[in-house]
């Protein structure tokens, strides 16, 4: 090997590196204090959720306590508990913020399968406090996931239940989070003939299309982790304004994978791509899908599986797209946080991973 190979190697490596990591993360300091602690959580905390602007944190704990963390100033990034109260006898398994157009409110999903909405308001006495707006009690059927979407002037809430049913509620009064109307109820199946009565679902994941324009119809993607194969695969549901009903417009699974249990779904923000981007996690890994914008004659949207990200152990817990929809962050049962990006050739790679260390 000639000694000048050093430079050639540099060049070739650089280009390869560049093509694969065009977003080229540069960590502030690649030392031990790269990360900054922004909040300390109480004992028994099981879940957390940040509001739309990342200025409030809501956490739920195993004993049914909800804690709200605030920073002293919008410019500050250190958060301390400002409210802490017991909301339910059972533990909280998930906290979801209501869109800010409807106030500072959260939906709590409990281990016993019930769901309740809590809101921060100042009553006539002017003391700001959190109060219960609405409670959706559980019986045999549990709430598995709930997500909010804002469309024109209305707020919609999709709730997925353990019997494989999905309910879409609509808020009637923009200033009161207690009056909800059931707008639709259906199962996560493409063909309504295949609805099942005795489904048993362990978890569900819903992700709304983060709409850009007012003209688009509301849509969301939903997948189940259940014992009923045809319920599982992630399906895109779109509201049909003309007939006032929800229709499945795409299924995000190859024929062979349709019965795979879905652990998580995430719909990427679209800042101008000519297609939508959706991530679906199953036991085979994370699949990235391109979803066409324009329906065909049957009203279906074209789908294309562009990547299967499988070089990690365990099941995905959570998937989050960044604000530009270019980077996907995921967590999984192996405790690792991973960042994924597409390169200049359209090939998806793991760009960085974070491993919790004491």
């Amino acid at each position: 090997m000639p000694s000048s190979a050093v430079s050639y190697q540099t060049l070739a490596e650089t280009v390869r590196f560049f093509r694969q990591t065009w977003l080229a993360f540069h960590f502030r300091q690649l030392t031990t204090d790269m990360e900054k602690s922004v909040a300390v959580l109480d004992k028994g905390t099981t879940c957390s959720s940040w509001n739309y602007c990342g200025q409030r944190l809501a956490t739920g704990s195993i004993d049914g306590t909800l804690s709200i963390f605030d920073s002293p100033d919008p410019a500050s990034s250190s958060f301390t508990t400002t409210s802490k109260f017991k909301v339910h006898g059972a533990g909280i398994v998930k906290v979801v913020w209501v869109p800010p157009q409807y106030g500072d409110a959260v939906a709590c999903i409990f281990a016993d399968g019930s769901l309740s909405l809590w809101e921060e308001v100042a009553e006539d006495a002017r003391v700001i406090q959190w109060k219960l707006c609405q409670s959706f009690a559980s019986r045999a059927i549990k709430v598995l996931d709930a997500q909010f979407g804002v469309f024109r002037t209305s707020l919609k809430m999709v709730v997925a239940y353990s019997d494989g049913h999905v309910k879409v509620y609509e808020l009637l009064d923009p200033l009161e989070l207690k009056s909800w109307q059931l707008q639709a109820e259906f199962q996560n199946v493409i063909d309504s003939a295949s609805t099942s009565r005795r489904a048993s679902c362990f978890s569900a994941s819903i992700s709304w299309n983060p709409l850009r324009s007012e003209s688009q119809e509301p849509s969301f993607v939903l997948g189940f982790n259940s014992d009923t194969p045809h319920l599982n695969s992630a399906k895109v549901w779109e509201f049909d304004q003309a007939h006032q009903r929800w229709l499945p417009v795409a299924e995000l699974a190859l024929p062979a994978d349709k019965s795979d249990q879905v652990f998580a779904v995430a719909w990427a923000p679209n800042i101008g791509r000519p297609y939508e981007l959706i991530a679906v996690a199953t036991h085979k890994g994370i699949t990235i899908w391109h979803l066409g914008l324009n329906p065909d004659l049957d009203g279906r949207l074209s789908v294309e599986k562009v990547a299967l990200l499988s070089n990690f152990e365990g099941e995905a817990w959570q998937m989050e797209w960044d604000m530009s929809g270019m980077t996907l962050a995921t967590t999984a049962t192996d405790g690792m946080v991973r960042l994924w990006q597409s390169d200049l050739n359209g090939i998806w790679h793991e760009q960085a991973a974070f491993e919790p260390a004491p």
Partner: protein
Amino acid sequence: MAITGLPKPPEIHRLTQSKYIDSVRWLPSVSPFQKHVIVAFFDVDTDTPSLEIHSLDPPKPLVPLSLWTPPSRISSLKTTRSVAAASTISGSVHIFVTGVERHDISGLEPVFTVVGKEFHMGSVNGVDLMEGNSECVSVGDDGRVNLVNFGVEGSFGKGSYRKVFDGNGLVSYTAVKWASPSEFVTGGYGFGLQWWDIRRPGEAVGQFKGNWNHGKTSGIIHSIDIHPSRKHTCLAGGSTGTVFAWDLRSQQQPIILSGVGTGETMTHPLSESEVWEVQCDCYIKSSSRGLSSSRILPAMFCSEDGILAVVEQGEEPTELLAEPCAINSFDIDLQNPSDIICSLEWESIAIVSRP
């Protein structure tokens, strides 16, 4: 950078800080060579606010003299010859002795502090002091108007406060300015101004409705100034580049000095964005023929779109500074009105010296 109207451009010094500047005020100086300023900083890297006194000798950097750490960021800062008042976004008001009689400059501790849910809930948006008066008026988002009495001259440290009005959040006030020892003016949403007389408590004695252009544009008053020699005339600045004067004697008709949506009279407003601060400008140009008492004093304002300018009734405006970023506050040196200090959005301070 276009600077018009002045034969000689003003001298400008920019002093880069590594902290955000929430507010800046001149302090009275002992000698013309030793200028002092009080600055409300916010260090975003460490999340710490601070109130600091610096000596100033541009173009040299600021020299810190003393520092105090407030409980939260400073929302409003006012000074007189001997006293400074600072309010915070968490609802407290702090009074400092800053005058020339203050010998020890190493420490900056409030002589009186008011804080508590009974006082203000949420941000105190404005405070004001009056020369020779030991009362500080404060207004807030909560719609409360409070008077903080910090004792008579010479016996600082004993203080109390009393509530003048409680709007219960049904109104919010964003600015306040004393007109006389017993009168002050508040401003708020909808371009409204209220004239208060503490001898007639309970409600405002005069109301100015901000709907002169029939609700086409509405906005918020950010700053009010009243010159001690013209206490019936109130100068106000706010949204959409609006600067206007309100003469108490002809209550419902404002004199628009600058702003959009003001009809045919203003063809080309200097600024169309938020006017963050206004002050009466007593700097007399050498050519000026003296100011008749019937005219409105020239007004200096700074804006979100980076303009520092002087507007005068019936005159072409004079632009002193045009920055690529917002000018968030400014102060005219009362001892030497040719000097102006401004705080810029991009973590820097600009000193403008007019010829």
